C-alpha cells in the first residue's frame, strides 16, 4: 500500500515522503481544531504542534492504525491541552434537557419550522460555532467526530478510548445541549 511505503520512507528521513503523507491532512486537522476551539489562533497553534509532534514521533508509528487516525489522536491531545486554559460551561444531565424537567421552566418545546427562514446561513453557523466552543471538549469532540467528520460511533469510541455507552452518552449530551442552545436563540428571535 502506498501509505505504508511513504511512512517507511519518512521514517528513514525522507522529508518529501512526509510532506506527501500529510498533504491531505493539513486542512482536516485545522478544521477539527477550529471546530473544537472556535478560535483561529488556537487552531493554527494546534496544527503546527500536531505536525511537529508527528515528526518527533514518526519512528514510533507502528502502522496499527491509519496515518490519519494517528494524526487525529495527536491533534486531539493538543486540543485538550489548549482547552484546559479556557472556561467552558458544564453540561446538564440528560434528563434535564427534557421539557418539564425539574430545573427547566419550559414546559413546551418550541416548533423550529425552518430556521433558514429566520436566520442567514452565516448566522446559523456562528451560533453553532460558538455553542460548540463553549462546551467542554469531552462532549464536543465525540459529537464533532461523529456528525461533522462522519465517523461511526465505534470509530469515535476507539479513537477516544472510551466505551461504547460512554461515547453514545457524550454524543447525546452534546447534541441535546446544542439543540437547546439553538432553540433558545430561535425562540428569542421569534418573540422579538
Amino acid at each position, binding site marked *: 500500500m502506498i501509505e505504508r511505503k511513504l511512512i517507511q520512507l519518512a521514517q528513514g*528521513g*525522507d*522529508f*518529501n515522503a*512526509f*510532506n506527501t503523507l500529510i498533504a491531505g491532512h*493539513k*486542512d482536516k486537522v*485545522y*478544521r477539527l481544531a*477550529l471546530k473544537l476551539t472556535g478560535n*483561529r489562533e488556537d487552531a*493554527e497553534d494546534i*496544527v*503546527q504542534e500536531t*505536525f*511537529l509532534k508527528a*515528526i*518527533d514521533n514518526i519512528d514510533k508509528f507502528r502502522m496499527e492504525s491509519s496515518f490519519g487516525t494517528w494524526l487525529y489522536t495527536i491533534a486531539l491531545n493538543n486540543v485538550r491541552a489548549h482547552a484546559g486554559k479556557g472556561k467552558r460551561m458544564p453540561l446538564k444531565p*440528560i*434528563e434535564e*434537557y*427534557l*421539557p*418539564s*424537567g425539574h430545573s427547566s421552566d419550559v*414546559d*413546551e*418545546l*418550541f*416548533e*423550529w419550522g425552518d*430556521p433558514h427562514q429566520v436566520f442567514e*446561513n452565516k448566522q*446559523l*453557523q456562528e451560533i*453553532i*460555532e460558538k455553542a460548540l466552543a463553549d462546551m467542554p471538549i469531552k462532549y464536543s469532540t465525540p459529537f464533532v467526530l461523529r*456528525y*461533522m467528520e462522519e465517523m461511526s460511533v465505534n470509530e469515535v469510541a476507539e479513537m477516544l478510548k472510551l466505551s461504547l455507552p460512554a461515547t*453514545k452518552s457524550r*454524543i*447525546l449530551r452534546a*447534541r*441535546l445541549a*446544542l*439543540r437547546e442552545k*439553538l*432553540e433558545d436563540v430561535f425562540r428569542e428571535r421569534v418573540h422579538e
Partner: protein
Amino acid sequence: MSKCDKQIQQICDYVDGELDGALCAELEAHLKECRNCRLMVDSLKQTVVLCREGKPEPLPKELEAKLSDALRRRWEKKFGGKKT
C-alpha cells in the same frame, strides 16, 4: 405532563436510524401521542443537518508557508544531514 426519560435515550438512536425494530415501533407509537418528543426528534435532526451545512475553512495560506518552514527545520534537526 410526564417526563419522557426513557424516550430521550432512544430518540438519538432513532434519529440516526439505529433503533431496533421493537423499540422503534414502541417509540413511534409514543411519538404519535407526545408532541414534545415529536418536536425533540425534529429539532435533533435539524441540529445535525445545520452542523453539516458549514463550509469547511481551508488552512490559511500564510500559515501554510509558516508551517512548511517550521516542519523543515524540525525535520533537519531530527534527521540531520540526511538527504530528503
